[in-house]
């Protein structure tokens, strides 16, 4: 067999590595800002672009898609050619992928700051960016499969399966969840409504965690951990078993984000059952990673790379133990809407994703620059500061979650709620300060890494390409007499792709199709009516300001929630909600039954100075809502789009919608005037008040009418 000479490209991995670290620092900096904002609301600065509701999505999108995303691509573009003994299929596609992805990140940050959001967590980006993501993702996929098809190594190493499964599933998730009807440039409505939207969103949300934050990083672990330790993975068999079981189980777990909500019970139970099963393949991966270091623990003492990997894999194990526990309904009753969830994701994000990335960088950058790490001591310092940062982040959050649960669920002997919501907020604020300090510590460690890596790069010289030699694959592959069946799939990437699609598709289908089609899942309530044009505009402002980041609209059927917020939420209440706004965190109280609780003037004063109505509140102020005008030119297309999505507005209603809008706005202005407040009826605050006063009103009307008839 003749050896062929070829070159591995290091330029693209270097670019992705720089982007990963750059966006990582930005994303974490924003994270530290919003962490302090929760403790000190003055840090919202009273400016729309820096207010929590808009900045928090920037943080989440930046760390997930910019930091971790570029981290994945760094690892894939470095390891894939070396595992397959061939350069990436197309250098042009690699470049398109790199620059396209960075442009998307910039567009995402700008548009989120400007308030363009679809209002669905971790999928906030508006439709033009969604399309751009799809195109770049396809370019990435073509490049991966092109490389696999032109490989010189027949066997597909386990890491490659993880990359393939991740690519396929993310493509599917992104397309399904981003189904939206554009209303204008940078504004769209989710195709789905209410319960269905919630199910699709959390099917996406959970699997984004699974197939963006977990499986690609497991692929990286299976490449970089053995490389750094200089020994093969503990059990290759285990890696195969846990790969298949992991991708098979993950796709079913999404509904555990919706326990005790208006989602049909059977779907909730399905999510719980599969989440618990997930413990096994997850721990298979963790143990496989840790056992790879058997007999090499002395190296861990010396090598900062291995130190980071060990804590990363341990955090993976902790987070994947915690996940199934949080999926138990009785545990979820405590954790849902609380800071526990925040602690949980940060064990995964800071520990697993962060530390694995740092370990990879400490190993990779010296390689790319043909030198040794500038300072092992600084890396060790980073390691300890980072670990302390994680602990200081997580423990206050757990503590805060339990305290707030016990306070929120406490009743006096007379049967009254013992604490106001604001009492809980006040109790939790000191923990928010501690958490912010933990995050700051973690970021400080990252900055030490940046310095260390720049010094490393400067002392070395960049190796742009590495020459390598390997024999080409023989044309006709003769299967050995006793080949195992799995090797058949391994040699056929397209088959593998299709099989992975089927495996993950089954999960999605079985869960979603019935909910979509069985009408009985969503009892329609005759009293629930579409939003008026003004309320619809107000709702879009609510979405745009990211109110859902702190306020839920979903009351669970517990005594302490019903007593605090009103009757528990029914599925039929949300049939016109494109998108749903159930939220996932209650930094502030639930708003599902907010309508009619307070007079219009309360909301007017509260939005400009929350502490004036609710002393001790940590809610930001929204002065610009009193300046900016309602975009009434968009009413027509919004009503039209909503009717397209099945909202029963009368025929040609869009022609007269603005008349109704003005009438209702004038009514609110009149109400405010009675309370000695003067404002023009075309300001955004009027629309927002209209929306807030509508929340939960329909079902209240039904209840009062049914009591009358009794």
């Amino acid at each position, binding site marked *: 067999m003749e050896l062929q*000479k070829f*070159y*591995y490209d290091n330029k693209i991995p270097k670019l992705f590595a720089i982007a990963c670290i750059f966006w990582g620092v930005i994303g974490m900096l924003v994270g530290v800002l919003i962490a302090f904002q929760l403790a000190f609301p003055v840090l919202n600065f009273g400016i729309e672009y820096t207010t929590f509701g808009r900045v928090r999505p920037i943080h989440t999108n930046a760390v997930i898609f910019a930091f971790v995303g570029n981290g994945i691509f760094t690892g894939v573009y470095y390891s894939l050619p*070396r*595992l397959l*003994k061939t350069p990436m299929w197309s250098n042009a596609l690699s470049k398109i992928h790199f620059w396209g992805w960075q442009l998307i990140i910039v567009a995402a940050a700008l548009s989120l700051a400007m308030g363009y959001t679809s209002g669905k967590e971790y999928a906030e980006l508006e439709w033009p960016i969604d399309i751009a993501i799809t195109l770049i993702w396809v370019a990435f996929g073509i490049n991966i499969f092109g490389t696999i098809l032109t490989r010189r*190594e027949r*066997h597909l*190493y*386990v890491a490659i399966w993880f990359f393939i499964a991740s690519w396929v599933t993310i493509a599917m998730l992104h397309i399904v969840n981003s189904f939206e009807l554009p209303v204008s440039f940078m504004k769209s409505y989710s195709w789905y409504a209410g319960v269905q939207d919630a199910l699709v969103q959390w099917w996406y949300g959970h699997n984004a965690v699974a197939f963006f934050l977990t499986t690609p990083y497991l692929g990286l672990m299976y*490449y970089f951990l*053995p*490389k750094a330790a*200089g*020994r*093969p*993975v503990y*059990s*290759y*068999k285990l890696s*195969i*078993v846990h790969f*298949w079981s992991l991708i*098979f189980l993950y796709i079913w777990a999404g509904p555990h984000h919706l326990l005790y909500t208006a989602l049909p019970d059977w779907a909730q139970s399905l999510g719980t059952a599969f989440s618990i099963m997930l413990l096994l393949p997850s721990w298979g991966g963790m143990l496989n990673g840790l056992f790879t270091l058997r007999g090499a623990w002395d190296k861990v003492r010396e090598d900062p790379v291995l130190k980071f990997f060990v804590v990363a894999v341990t955090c993976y194990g902790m987070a994947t133990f915690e996940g199934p526990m949080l999926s138990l309904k009785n545990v979820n009753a405590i954790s849902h809407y609380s800071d526990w969830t925040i602690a949980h994701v940060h064990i995964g994000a800071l520990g697993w994703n962060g530390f694995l990335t740092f370990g990879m960088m400490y190993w990779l950058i010296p390689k790319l620059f*043909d030198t040794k790490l500038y300072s092992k001591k600084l890396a060790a310092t980073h390691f300890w500061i980072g670990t302390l940062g994680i602990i200081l982040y997580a423990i206050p959050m757990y503590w805060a979650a339990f305290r707030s649960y016990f306070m929120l669920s406490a009743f006096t002997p007379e049967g009254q709620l013992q604490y106001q919501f604001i009492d809980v907020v006040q109790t939790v604020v000191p923990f928010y300060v501690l958490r912010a300090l933990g995050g700051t510590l973690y970021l400080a460690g990252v900055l030490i890494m940046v310095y260390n890596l720049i010094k490393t790069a400067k002392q070395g*010289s960049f*190796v*742009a*390409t*590495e*020459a*390598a*030699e*390997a024999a080409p694959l023989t044309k006709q592959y003769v299967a050995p007499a*006793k080949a*195992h*069946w*799995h*090797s058949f799939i391994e040699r056929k990437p397209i088959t593998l792709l299709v099989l992975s699609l*089927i*495996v993950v598709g*089954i999960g999605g*289908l*079985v869960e979603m*199709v*019935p909910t979509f*089609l*069985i009408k009985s899942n969503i009892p329609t309530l005759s009293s629930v009516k579409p939003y008026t044009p003004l309320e619809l505009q107000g709702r879009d402002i609510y979405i745009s300001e990211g109110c859902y980041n702190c306020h839920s609209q979903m009351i669970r059927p517990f005594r302490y929630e019903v007593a605090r917020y009103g009757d528990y939420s029914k599925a039929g209440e949300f049939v016109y909600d494109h998108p749903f706004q159930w939220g996932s965190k209650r930094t502030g109280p639930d708003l599902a039954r907010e309508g009619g609780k307070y007079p219009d003037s309360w909301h007017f004063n509260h939005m400009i100075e929350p502490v004036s109505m609710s002393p001790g509140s940590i809610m930001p102020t929204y002065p610009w809502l009193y300046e900016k005008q309602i975009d009434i030119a968009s009413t027509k297309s919004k009503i039209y789009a909503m009717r397209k999505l099945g909202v029963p507005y009368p025929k040609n209603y869009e022609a007269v919608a603005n008349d109704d809008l003005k009438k209702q706005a004038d009514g609110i202005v009149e109400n405010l005037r009675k309370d000695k407040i003067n404002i023009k009826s075309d300001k955004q605050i009027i629309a927002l008040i209209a929306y807030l006063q509508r929340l939960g009103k329909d079902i209240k009307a039904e209840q009062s009418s049914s009591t009358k008839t009794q």
Partner: protein
Amino acid sequence: MSIIILIAAVSILIAGGFLIAFLWGVKDGQFDDDFAPPNRILFDDTIKTKNQK
């Protein structure tokens, strides 16, 4: 409405098929060569003289 039951049934059937195929593979000792691939990645195939084009 029966279409849902049909889709669900077919889906679960395929899923079950995967599981059976997988268990069969394990029982049959199909994963025999779990030595070469994990070891192979540890060796670099790069030619020692670097930075050449």
